Structures are given as C-alpha cells and as structure tokens.
C-alpha cells in the first residue's frame, strides 16, 4: 500500500498526463462499447449468445472468418518476411524507397484501395484483359466477388502490419552472430535458418497476431470484394445492426468476436514466450 502511495507521488506528473486521455477513452470509447455490449444480455438471459453460438448461420460465418483470417495471416507472413529482410539489409536509400512503397498505400483510404482492386481484378479488369491478350488464359479468371478477391484485398491492406514488427526485430539482430555462426562452420543458409530466423520469431509472432486479429473484424474489403457470397462476421454484425435492428444478437456476436480475438492474441503471446524459453 505504502509502495503504491510512494509510486503515486513519484509518478504524479505521469498520472496527471495520463488522466485526460484515459478519461477521454473511458467516456467516448469504453462507456459506449460497454453500453452496446449490455444489449447482448437484455432480458436478463443469454438467449442471444446461445443463438450466436448454435445457429448454423453464425457458426458458418465464424468459421469462414477464422479461415480467411488464417489464410491472410499466412500469405502476409510469406510475403512480409522476405520483404522485411530485404528492407533490413538494404542500403539506406533503397530502404527509404522500399518504405515509401510500403507506406504509400498505407496512407490511402481502405475504401479507395478496395475500389482500385475492383478495377484491377474484375472479369474485364486490367489483369484479366492482359492475360487474355497475351493468350495465357482463354477464360477470365474469377478473382473478384469471391473469397480470392477478399483475400487479395485484405493482404494488401494488412501487409504493413506484418512487415513493420518483423523489420524492427530484424534490425536489432546482431549481425556478428551470423558471422560467428559461419566462422564455426555453418553455411550461410544454415546460419540464416538456425540463427537469424529464430531470433526474429518475436517479430513474426507480433506481426501474425496483429494481422490475424485485425482480419477477424474486417468489414469494408469483404463487403465490397466478396460479391455478397463471402460473409465475414463484421459484415454480418453490420447487417444485424442496420438492417434487422437486432442489436442484442449483434452485441452478442461482437462479444464473441472480441473474446476470440483476445483469446487468440493471448495464445500467440504464450507461444511466443514459450519459444523464448526454449532458446
């Protein structure tokens, strides 16, 4: 108790500075969210949760959401790891150029980027027309208005979330360890695989968690690129709120989504910590 008081005195200015944003969050974020979530137990029972967890429609949509989030995280990792590595070893000039390319779309509205994908991926879009003209395909590929389109759009939006954590960890890796490994007889590939990669795993886990968790709640991209046939949970919540006015069920679904996201984030943290103790 006294330690806490001492701490309070010492941290006085910090606490004072933190109070305003904290109040801001409490008032404008936590309170409304809590209010919304309280709808889920209106009537004093868990009927909405029961429906959300047992109704075939919601189960199917949850599974589809998990599947897409997993695929998106995996593709982001496969693309993001080499990209982060390239940026980490590049000369300052090339690193700057690389980041500019990575960040430029990051600063563009998701909506604009999603529409851009519609122009590129459409049946009559740039990509299909080029491939048709080159005679590589004789039927347009179905790249839009299906799961493929949603995944392409989401990977594009979420890739920076994978690259930045990995990059920042890679920059901190001591390069002399690689030289040491090679000095001890490891081939460059072995040194990369057995020294460098394990050291960058914290970044990989952080990036994967970010991408996966953000994917779970994605709305604009699946709504626009899914053609109505790809139903992710965010789209379903929006329909419940706006179209069906079933806020109780919407709140229950939102809580389950929140719990799943927190649970998965905690699990990945666990994995990460476990991995660190192995090394």
């Amino acid at each position, binding site marked *: 108790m006294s330690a806490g008081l001492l701490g309070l005195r010492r941290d006085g200015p910090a606490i004072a500075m933190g109070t305003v944003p904290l109040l801001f969050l409490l008032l404008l974020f936590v309170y409304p969210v809590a209010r919304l979530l309280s709808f889920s137990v209106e009537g004093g029972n868990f009927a909405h949760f029961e429906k959300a967890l047992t109704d075939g429609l919601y189960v199917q949509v949850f599974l589809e959401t998990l599947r897409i989030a997993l695929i998106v995280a995996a593709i982001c990792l496969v693309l993001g790891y080499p990209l982060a590595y390239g940026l980490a070893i590049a000369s300052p000039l090339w690193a700057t150029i690389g980041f500019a390319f990575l960040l430029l779309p990051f600063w563009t509205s998701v909506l604009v980027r999603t529409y851009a994908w519609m122009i590129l991926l*459409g049946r009559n879009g740039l990509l299909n027309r080029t491939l048709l003209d080159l005679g590589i395909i004789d039927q347009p590929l*179905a790249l839009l208005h299906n799961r493929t389109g949603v995944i392409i759009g989401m990977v594009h939006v979420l890739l920076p979330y994978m690259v930045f954590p990995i990059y920042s960890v890679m920059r901190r890796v001591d390069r002399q360890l690689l030289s040491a490994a090679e000095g001890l007889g490891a081939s460059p590939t072995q040194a990369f695989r057995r020294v460098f990669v394990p050291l960058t795993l914290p970044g990989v886990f952080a990036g994967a968690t970010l991408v996966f968790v953000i994917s779970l709640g994605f709305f604009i991209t699946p709504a626009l690129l899914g053609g109505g046939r790809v139903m992710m949970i965010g789209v379903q919540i929006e329909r419940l709120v*706006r*179209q069906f*006015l079933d806020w109780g069920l919407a709140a229950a679904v939102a809580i389950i989504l929140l719990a799943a996201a927190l649970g998965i984030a905690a699990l990945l943290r666990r994995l990460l910590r476990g991995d660190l103790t192995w090394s």
Partner: protein
Amino acid sequence: MTISKMAWLGGVALAAAVAWAVPVAAQTAKPAQIVVNASGGAQAAALRKSFYEEFEKRFGIRVVDSSPPDMGKLRAMVTTGNIEWAVTELNVEDAMLAQEQGLLEPIDPKIVDRSRFPANLQGRTHIFTRSAYSTVMGYRNDIFPAGKRPTTWADFWNVKDFPGPRAMQNSPIDNLEFALIADGVDKDKLYPLDVERAFKKLDQIKPHVTVWWTTGAQSAQLLIDKEVVLGTAWNGRYYAAIQQGAPINMEWNQAGIKESAFVIPKGAKDAHWAQQMLSVMTDPKLQGIYANIVTYPGLNLDATQYTDPKIQPFLPTHKDNLSRQWWQDVDWWVKNGKTMQDRWSRWVIAK
C-alpha cells in the same frame, strides 16, 4: 441584487415559463437549418434543385442534406433522443417496421395535403410516399443485339440463350417475385408469395449470379464495367448510366414497382418544419422538376404534365411501363420480411 438584474432574471423565468407552457410556439420557432437524410449521390442534387431550394426560399431555413437512409441510425437517434434528422428517406418496408416500433411522427394532414395522391397512399398515417421506383432488368446491348434481347425473367433465367454472368440484389425483395414470374406465375397473382417455389427457382440461377449487389451505384457499375452482362437495378441507376453513354438497355416488362418513403423521426425537434418540407414535396411542379433529373416520379397525379415528354418513357409510372409491371405488396413484406431476410442470408452463402 440590483433591480435591473432582478428584472433580467424575471424575464428569463418568464421566457422559460412561456416556452414550457406553449410548446407549440417553441416547436414552430424557426431553426437556422434542418437536416434531410436521403440516398445521396445524383439524388441529393435533384432533391436540392427541386424541393430544397423551394423550401429555403419559402421559409428562409437552410436545408442540409445527409445520407444514406439507415434504420439502425434512426432507431439510435429516437431511443437516445438525439435526433439529427428532421426528415429521412426509408424504403417502404423499413418505414412500416419503424412505424410499428413507434419510431415515427404522424404526418399532419393539415400541413401535408395528399388529396391529389392515389387513394391508397393518402391513408398512410406515418409514411409520406414521395416517389415510386422500379427494380428492372438491364443488360449490355452490345452483348445482346436487337432481336436477341432478354425481355422476361424467364429469359434472365435462360442461361443457354442468354449466356454470361449476372448480378442481382443481395436481398429477397424483388428476387423472390422475379423467380416466381420466371417459373410461370402470373405477375398479377404473385401474393402471397410461394416462398418454397421461389427459392427452388433461385437455386437454378444462383451459380450464374457472380455478384449479389448491395448498393445502387454498384448495380449499374457492374454492367458498365462488363463485370456482368445481365443484371437488376433501380430504374434511375440505369437511366443515369445510359445518359453517360453506357451501352445498356433496361426492360420494363415484369419489373417491380414500389413506393419510396419519407418519414419524420419520433420526437424530431423541428417536426413542424419537417411537415412543411413534406408539404413542399407534394407540389406537382417540383415533382416534375425532380423526375426530369433522376426519373423517379412523384406521386401527385398532376405531376406528369410538368415532366419532360422525353423523360416520360423512363418513368416507372408512365402508362406503358406501369401496365407491364407489378406493384410490390408492402403488407406481405412487412409481415414476412424478417423471416425472408434471415432465410436469404443462409441461402446466399450456402454452397
């Protein structure tokens, strides 16, 4: 306390008492502006040129427009008492639902004169039918040249003679009716809908529908981009695309016509001025101006004479078009809408 201060306080108290005792006076006090919420886009400009400009001129109150119509937002506004809109557009099923849930102000017949409206629309107590619109079939006229054009829903379902990807709205509304007509049901004997038969017929077209659209803008764009070659859309959307030179034809035969509703949220602080806005919207001349821009006609029976003859073939209410269409049965949809939407959500994502 000085005398002047006391007098001032007394004045304030008196003013407060008056405001409390005479709510009517408080209600009619002129606000600087009112917000009218509608679909946005080209419609917003047309609403301004026709009704909003006239309203501003008549009453000296600025009209601010916002979009889109949103049932969730309407309910949030009314339940929290923080009502931003004086008037909002809603599709008529939503409007009926909102009325049922007590979210709407009644229309004041002393202000809003609908005596020149069709009799069935005069009786709507909380819903003002501002316009009519149709969901029509549209197609690329470069893919389907003259003589090889789809004209019926049976043609829309006929993927052998009319091949190519199709788009339909992501909603059971209209689509159940289209399916039944395609299956041979008389367009004038649709209701009550044979739901099982409709979904069974929809199963047949499902693999050929590559996009289930959700917004009006999307529906026309899909044909413009050649993403699909056949589709459905609200008539004004195709009209706008055709005006821009897109190679699109629309087909009035067997199209579904329905009401577009404007309503006043329950407890709207400028309800009196909202009623005045609806009153402006009954003006046949202004309805004519509006229809000339977006091809959505007003329902005042005198409006036709103020509509450009060149525009008239594009209006759902034009006599040649009207006789070939069917009117949506609002009551059936209000009663069954929720069940149908739920069933649709499952059907559309089922493999």
